[in-house]
Every structure is written in structure tokens, then in C-alpha cells.
């Protein structure tokens, strides 16, 4: 057994869900209990997907266990197929079903459905999400290609490799493999890389799995080479495609100016194309911004990097070579990428931190006292708690990491985005010095946190109001709908949020004062002022609990 507080990766069937959800015409049936349907919200809430993930769960219960769960699963498969009519059906199980051994994959294959049925066996007690995604993607493509050779639908592919060669000076074709649902900035990276390839003179053959269809997967062998954009998801497949279809693949992940140039060089080597006009580092503003005098103070900043393998390695290189930072720690939660990250860390004279225990990562950060943390959603929280500026560079992510604006990480524009997102928290860090300088000014007080650390939510006030300095004993929260909603009516009519707990003009009874303390600290000041204003408007000099609630009702709307 392994003790986990927060996990970096979900179980492997969630990885399979990411592949199914990325595709447009695949359905995935999972033999699983009802609670496992929580995974839908990852897609609909975090990624704000507009459709439900194409996933059906058997949702067996304890009372079904004595009976025939296998039959129940068959019914689920039948109903799901009839309703959704997918081109491919993936069938698998989650941790619980693995124990009852109904063999969902072979059950489904025995049902004689008219589409390829892909049995997914993803060991839930030893593997994790990214591995599950990678395996599912690999099997999906293998099965689809196998069914293509057996099936006339292969004719839907417009031209074979030979035909392409006969055409006059065709552009070399590449598949972009790996971008997926819930991946970090995949949506925009694909756009950026497609543009870059176009400039280099490469035709994009298939992008998968993101927004792909199975007929498109049939065409994968038509490409001259593959681009393994996210090795976590696509490396297994790329290696197999290389062996089976002699398609070489580009291994550099084009994050950062240097990596983007190396990425183009790899393509040049594979295709013989000369792309020197595209391969210009000043196509990104990063190199000049990094050299401008303003950035001098960035040099030597101590940076801690922790992410999935490819983003961690890329980030460390950018930090050192393109911003002049000092990388003091490098690690990943991904066991599959451990070897790559160890090798990269060696370049920096560091020992890689390979671990998926949030507390250990936190401890490392604490000990290394970096000035900037580049990490995942988890590290953002660690950094916030320690008051260290932080930028998110990799999944696992939160809803805010799916920005409305275009913000790729890859290619030359990606480097611009990276410059802004990493340097911004540091610039804001300057504010801290100002706060120190003015700490005795009445307008400021030392409980005001730098604005980039979410204002008062994470500042000194927090500890003071909750008496929660002792870590762990006081649950610490970033936002709670509970409290905000509760206090809403009391704060609705006041605008200045930050200054609070000012001297008391009207007198509060002890009970009312205690009641006030139950309102969350970040709106308490407003609640107090509104109540006082309300009391004064009625000419009351003493505020009781009744007054407090009367005011709450008064301001409700």
C-alpha cells in the first residue's frame, strides 16, 4: 500500500478516457461502479468540454455482484453501441472490475458488433493515467490499422505512399501524434506546430488523437514521418510505427526557442528540406527580451522545475539557456519518463527528483528555497503556501490552465508566451519589496499579500484569522463556495475588498462579535461595515446577532 494525499495522475482508465474523448467517433465502455463516473467532470468542468465524454459505465452495485455482472456489462455495451453508433468501441474496466474478472474485452469481442472492438487491459494497481493514455492510443491505432487491411474501408484513404511519390514534387507529409484532451495547452500547440510545419514546407497528414476520426487514423501510414509531440502519449506508438511502416519520428519537443530550432533541424535531416529561413531564433521575441537590460535581474534566479517528463526537461533548458536562470532542482512524477529526466538532470549537475508524493516535493522546494517554481497545479499550491512565485508548465492542471486566449507553449510564439508567464510572477515579486518598504504606512499593513498571490486569500491575514499557523491542523483553503456564498449578501454593496477590520465605531455585543468571526476573513470587513452602516441608518448604537442577520437580510438580493 502507498499513502497518497494528492495524486499527480489518475488511474490508467482515465488515460484511456482522454484518448476516447480526444477522438470524434470512438466510444469507451468501462466496467466500473457508479462513483467512477466522477471522471466525466475532469472533461466537462476543468477543460469546459461542451459534450459529455463518449464514455458509458456499467455502474454495477454490490447487489449485482452475486448475480451476473458480466451480463450486465454486455447489456451496457449493447445499449451504448446502439445509442452512439461509434466507428470504434473501446472496452475496459476500472480497478474494481479488474478484481471481479469479467474479462470485458473478450466479452465485447464475442458480441459480434459490426465495428472494431478494442479490449483495453490497463492494470489499475500498478499503472497510471499517462501510461493508460499511451497504451490506449497505441492499441487504438494498431487495431484500426489492422481492421483497415482486412476491410475495404481502407479504400477511403485517398492515395497510397507510392502514388504520392509519383506526383510532382509533393511536400513531405507528417503526422502529429500525441496531443490529447486534458493535455497541457495541446489545443494551441497543435495550431502553432501546424503553422510552423507549413512554413517549413511539410504537409500535415493526420493530427491524432485530438479531434481525429478513425478514417483519419487509417491514413497514418501515408505520412513520410511522425512528430512525437507529446512522448508521454505517443512514444510507444511512434516506435511501433517506425518498426512497422519505416516512418522515422522527430523526437525533439519544440518547447523553447532552442528546442524549436532543434526540432526544425531534425525535420531537415529527415526530409532533406532546407528550412534555414524558418529556423531564425529572432522569430521569437524571447531572445531579445532576455537580453534587454530590463531582464538583467532575472539572471541567476534560483528555479525549481517539477512536471511531466517532457515539459520538465524543456523548461529546465529554457530556464538555463534562454533566461539565464539557475536551475536548482529538476524532477518528474512520471516513472515512465524517469530515465530521460535523470539524464537531463545530469546535464545540470543535479540529481533528478523522481517521485509522485506531493509532500516530498514540497519538502524539496522548502529546502532549496527557490525564487521561482515551475510546476504543475500541485506545485502552484506549494509555492503559494511558501510565498514563492510560480508558473504552471504542465498537467495536472486546473480550469484556469485552459485559457480563453491563444497561448501555446510550443514553437516561437510558445516561447513568447513562456517568457511572459514565467517572468510576470517575478516582476510582481518586486511588489513584495515595496510592501516591506511601506509596511508602516497606514494604507498598507503587513498582512497584505502581494497581489499575484491571490491577494488576501493567501496572505498573512489568513493565518491570523484562522489561528492556523500550525500547518496541517488548520485546513487551509483557496476558495470556498460555501463561505463566499454565505457571506454574499453582506458584501454585495461595498466595493473595497482589501482593507478591513478597521476600528469599531458602533459597539458590538460579544455574541455578535463572535458570530462575525464565523464569516470568512476575506469578506468579514465588508460584513462588519455593512452591518454598522445598517445599524447607524436605524440609529442603533449596539449591534446584536439579530442586527447582524437583519442586515444580512437587508442587503440580500
Amino acid at each position, binding site marked *: *500500500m*502507498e*499513502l*497518497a*494525499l*494528492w*495524486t499527480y495522475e*489518475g*488511474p490508467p482508465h482515465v488515460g484511456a478516457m482522454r484518448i476516447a474523448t480526444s477522438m470524434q467517433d470512438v466510444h469507451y465502455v468501462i466496467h466500473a*461502479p*457508479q*462513483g*467512477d*463516473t*466522477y*471522471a*466525466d*467532470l475532469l472533461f*466537462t*468542468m476543468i477543460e469546459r*468540454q*461542451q*459534450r*459529455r465524454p463518449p464514455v458509458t*459505465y*456499467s*455502474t*454495477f*452495485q*454490490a447487489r449485482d*455482484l452475486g448475480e451476473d455482472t458480466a451480463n450486465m456489462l454486455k447489456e*451496457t455495451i449493447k*445499449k451504448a453501441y446502439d445509442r452512439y453508433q461509434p466507428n470504434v468501441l473501446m472496452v475496459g474496466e476500472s*480497478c*474494481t472490475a479488474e*478484481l471481479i474478472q469479467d474479462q470485458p474485452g473478450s466479452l465485447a469481442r464475442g458480441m459480434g458488433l459490426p465495428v472494431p472492438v478494442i479490449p483495453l487491459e490497463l492494470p*489499475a*494497481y*500498478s499503472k*497510471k493515467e499517462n501510461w493508460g493514455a499511451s497504451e490506449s492510443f497505441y492499441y487504438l491505432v494498431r487495431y484500426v490499422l489492422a481492421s483497415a487491411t482486412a476491410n475495404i474501408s481502407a479504400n477511403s484513404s485517398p492515395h497510397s505512399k507510392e502514388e504520392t511519390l509519383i506526383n510532382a514534387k509533393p511536400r513531405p507529409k507528417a503526422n502529429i501524434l500525441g496531443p490529447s484532451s486534458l493535455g497541457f495547452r495541446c489545443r494551441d500547440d497543435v495550431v502553432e506546430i501546424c503553422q510552423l510545419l507549413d512554413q517549413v514546407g511539410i504537409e500535415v497528414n493526420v493530427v491524432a488523437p485530438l479531434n481525429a476520426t478513425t478514417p483519419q487514423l487509417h491514413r497514418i501510414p501515408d505520412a513520410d514521418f511522425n512528430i512525437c509531440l507529446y512522448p508521454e502519449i505517443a512514444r510507444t506508438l511512434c516506435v511501433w510505427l517506425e518498426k512497422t511502416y519505416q516512418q522515422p519520428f522527430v523526437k525533439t519537443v519544440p518547447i523553447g526557442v532552442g528546442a524549436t530550432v532543434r526540432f526544425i533541424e531534425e525535420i531537415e535531416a529527415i526530409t532533406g528540406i532546407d528550412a534555414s529561413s524558418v529556423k531564425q531564433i529572432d522569430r521569437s521575441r524571447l531572445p531579445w527580451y532576455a537580453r534587454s537590460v530590463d531582464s538583467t535581474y532575472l539572471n541567476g534566479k534560483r528555479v525549481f522545475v517539477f512536471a511531466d517528463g517532457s515539459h520538465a526537461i524543456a523548461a529546465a533548458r529554457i530556464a538555463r539557456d534562454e533566461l539565464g536562470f539557475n536551475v536548482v532542482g529538476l524532477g518528474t512524477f512520471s516513472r515512465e519518463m524517469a530515465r530521460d529526466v535523470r539524464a537531463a538532470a545530469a546535464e545540470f549537475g543535479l540529481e533528478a527528483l523522481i517521485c509522485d508524493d506531493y*509532500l516530498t516535493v514540497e519538502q524539496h522546494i522548502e529546502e532549496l528555497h527557490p525564487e521561482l517554481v515551475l510546476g504543475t497545479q500541485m506545485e502552484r*499550491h506549494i509555492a503559494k503556501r511558501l510565498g514563492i512565485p510560480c508558473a504552471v508548465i504542465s498537467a495536472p492542471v486546473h480550469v484556469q490552465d485552459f485559457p480563453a486566449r491563444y497561448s501555446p507553449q510550443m514553437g516561437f510564439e510558445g516561447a513568447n508566451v513562456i517568457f511572459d508567464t514565467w517572468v510576470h510572477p517575478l516582476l510582481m515579486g518586486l511588489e513584495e519589496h515595496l510592501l516591506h518598504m511601506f509596511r508602516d504606512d497606514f494604507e498598507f499593513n503587513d498582512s497584505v499579500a502581494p497581489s499575484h498571490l491571490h491577494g488576501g486569500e493567501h496572505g498573512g491575514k489568513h493565518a491570523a484569522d484562522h489561528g492556523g499557523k500550525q500547518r*496541517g*491542523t488548520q*485546513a487551509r*483553503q*483557496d*476558495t*470556498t*463556495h*460555501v463561505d463566499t*456564498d*454565505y457571506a454574499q*449578501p453582506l458584501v454585495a454593496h461595498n466595493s473595497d475588498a482589501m482593507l478591513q477590520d478597521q476600528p469599531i465605531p458602533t459597539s458590538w455585543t460579544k455574541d455578535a462579535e463572535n*458570530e462575525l468571526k*464565523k464569516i470568512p476573513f476575506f469578506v468579514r470587513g465588508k460584513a462588519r461595515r455593512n452591518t454598522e452602516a445598517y445599524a447607524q441608518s436605524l440609529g442603533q448604537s449596539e449591534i446584536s446577532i439579530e442586527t447582524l*442577520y437583519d442586515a*444580512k*437580510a437587508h442587503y*440580500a438580493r
Partner: protein
Amino acid sequence: MNAPVLCDIPITVERGQREVFCGLTGIVWLHRKMQDAFFLVVGSRTCAHLLQSAAGVMIFSEPRFATAIMQEKDLAGLADANEELDRIVHRLLQRRPDIKTLFLVGSCPSEVIKLDLAKAAERLSASHQGRVNVLNYSGSGIETTFTEGEDTCLDALVHAAPYTDQSQLIVVGTLPDVVEDQFARLFESSGIAEAAGKVAFFPPRRAEHIPAIGPNTKFILAQPFLNITRRTLIGRGASHIPSLFPFGINGTLAWMRAAADAFDVAEANISKACEAPIARAEKALAHYRETLAGKRLWFMPDSQLEIPLARFLQQECSVDLQEIGVPYLDRQTMNSELSCLPQNSSIVEGQDVDEQLDRIRKNQPDLVVCGLGLANPLEAEGIITKWSIELVFTPIHGFDQAGDLAELFARPLQRKQRLRV
């Protein structure tokens, strides 16, 4: 007490894919209520991931819950699961000396492999004698649905409660502290507290102070999902005060009256104590009535709060109920509530999520109350939703929250009116 006549409103039962959380989710609010308790799920990576995803926006630096994730070797018998569990618990308790109660929470995997957590709890309690009380309950998805995880947790607490023959009133069901305090004041001012001898809330704010229970205990439910706990309390000699649940003015007033009745407190006292809060609630509710009146509402099965909330919205906000889905139904617990619903209400027990969505598309309700997995896809189809999970995280009980409760449903409708994109 004679069993009351059960309301005979018809119920449709549906079977198919369910789209609800499992009982583990209750940990998200239970651990905040009992601040000296730690919840250790014995399960899989899926369980850990569910908890983390359900906790959603509320990320604590070091939460008072965790998962002991079973590995291949635990299942293959290479490691003794019990020894492994003991090792993890020892480590945990060393790290967290502030923990006074440890809940071992069963999951689907632990139940399928028949890991005996009751025995483990006994063993661990004995080996940490006096330092920490180890209890166990099931939050598994094969046994429990969403809020039912609170039911099984409180049931474990009832089993662990000491005996008393003192007369008292116990309010059962997790309430936010601020709501508890409001109720405590109402019990004081109405004279119920005095007549009862003592009022206690269950679960307690500190798990080490479990209220004692016995034959002179009368209890009233504050939450509608506590069927198992209710039966166990009765088994321990306590008597149940049946009532509406304290949502909205009607629910809260009926609830106060039921408690008063049970202790022979005069009706006049209740009217007097509730007068001012009711006036405030009326005032607050008035803000939302216009938005809600006549709106066609649809509840997807989720938290078990569906029926009482439907009653509140129908009676006090004049909404039009289209379908009320519930994951499961205990007619005994819901009896008073059911009899307040219009006789022609369409109540569906169980779930086939695809069929339900088809019905929603066909009927085009004005507002669908549903879980997080369904909300955005429905919004994308132009159907306004309210996330049901907010209903279990937000203070919604009692007079002083009636307005807030109505607002939760009014807000998405108001947003629809505001947006021009």
C-alpha cells in the same frame, strides 16, 4: 410510536447507467466538520483521484484525508494487506499527533477483496490505546451513493457513542457551524432546550466528543439521507421525531414544531421564537420569488436533497416541478416530505442517465439541477443548470439561509437574462 401511514405518491423505478458520486465524497465535508478526525480511504488510485476531483476548488496544503492505495503486491498476497495498513496508519499517526479519531473508509476494491476494516479498526484502536479512536465505515460506490457516505459514517459514530439515560434532543446530520449556532439559539429561545434537558448536534465538532445516546434520547434529522443512522439510533433506544427537513420557512417551522411537540413545548413559544427569523426569511425570499415563479424545474438524481428542496421550491417559490430524480428512496425517511408534494409529481428512483437526458431534451425545463459531469454539456445545449454539489457545501438550512437557498437556484436563471452572448 405507530408507524405513520406512508404517502402513496407513485414512484417510477429506472435502471441503467448511474451518474452519481460514491459515498467517499462525504469526506470532503465531514473532515471539515470534525476537525480532530482523519479519514483514510483504503482503496485504489481511482478513489484518491475521485476525492481530489470532488474536493475540486478546495485544495488544502495537507488535508485531513488520504488514500491508502492498494498495489499489485497487496492483491497478489505478496504483502499482507493488514500489515501494510498498520504500517501506513502508524506512519500517519506519527506525522499527525493532532488526530484523535481515525476513520478507515472502505472502498469498492477493499470490499471486493473482503478486507475486514472493522477488525483492522479494532486492532489499531487497541494498539494505539487511548491515543486515537479508530472507526470504520463504507464509502464504496457499490454500497453507497454520494451523501449516503455521511450516513454510513454517522452510523459508525452512533455505534461508538457511550450510553446515557439523560433526557436530550439530538440533531442528526452535518450542518455548517454557523447554522448549528442559529438552531441552538432557536432551541434556547423557544424553551425546547430547557424542556429537553440538553441539545446536542451529531456529528460533533470534535469526533472525540461523541454525544451519549440512550432511551431518553429523542432525535430529529437535519439531513434527508440518514436512513441507516436513523435505524441504528432507534436500535440504541433513541426515538425518532419525524418531520419535514429544515429547508425554507415551512420546513424549518415544521421541524421546530416537531421538536417542540416531542418535548411538550407550547406552540406559542415556537411562534414567538420563530417570528423574527421568519420575517427576515420572507424578506430575503421575496428577492427571488419573481425569478423563480412558474419556472419548470428538473432534478437529476444526486444528493438525496432533491425531494425536500423540490418541496421548498414548489411551496415557497412557486416553481413548477417537472421531474424529481432520486438515486434511491426510503419512504419512511421521506414520508412527510412526499406528502407535501403535488400528488401528480413525477418522481423517478434510480437512474438511466441517457434516458433522462433524452427526457430533458424533450421537455426543455427552465433549470436542471445536476452533477458536475452533466452541467456544462447541458448548458452547451442551451439548458440552464445548477450544480447540485454546491447544495451540500453551502449553508442552506434554516430560516436565515432560506434566501440564500432560493438564490442558488435563481442565480443561473438571472445569468441567462443578463448575458447577451
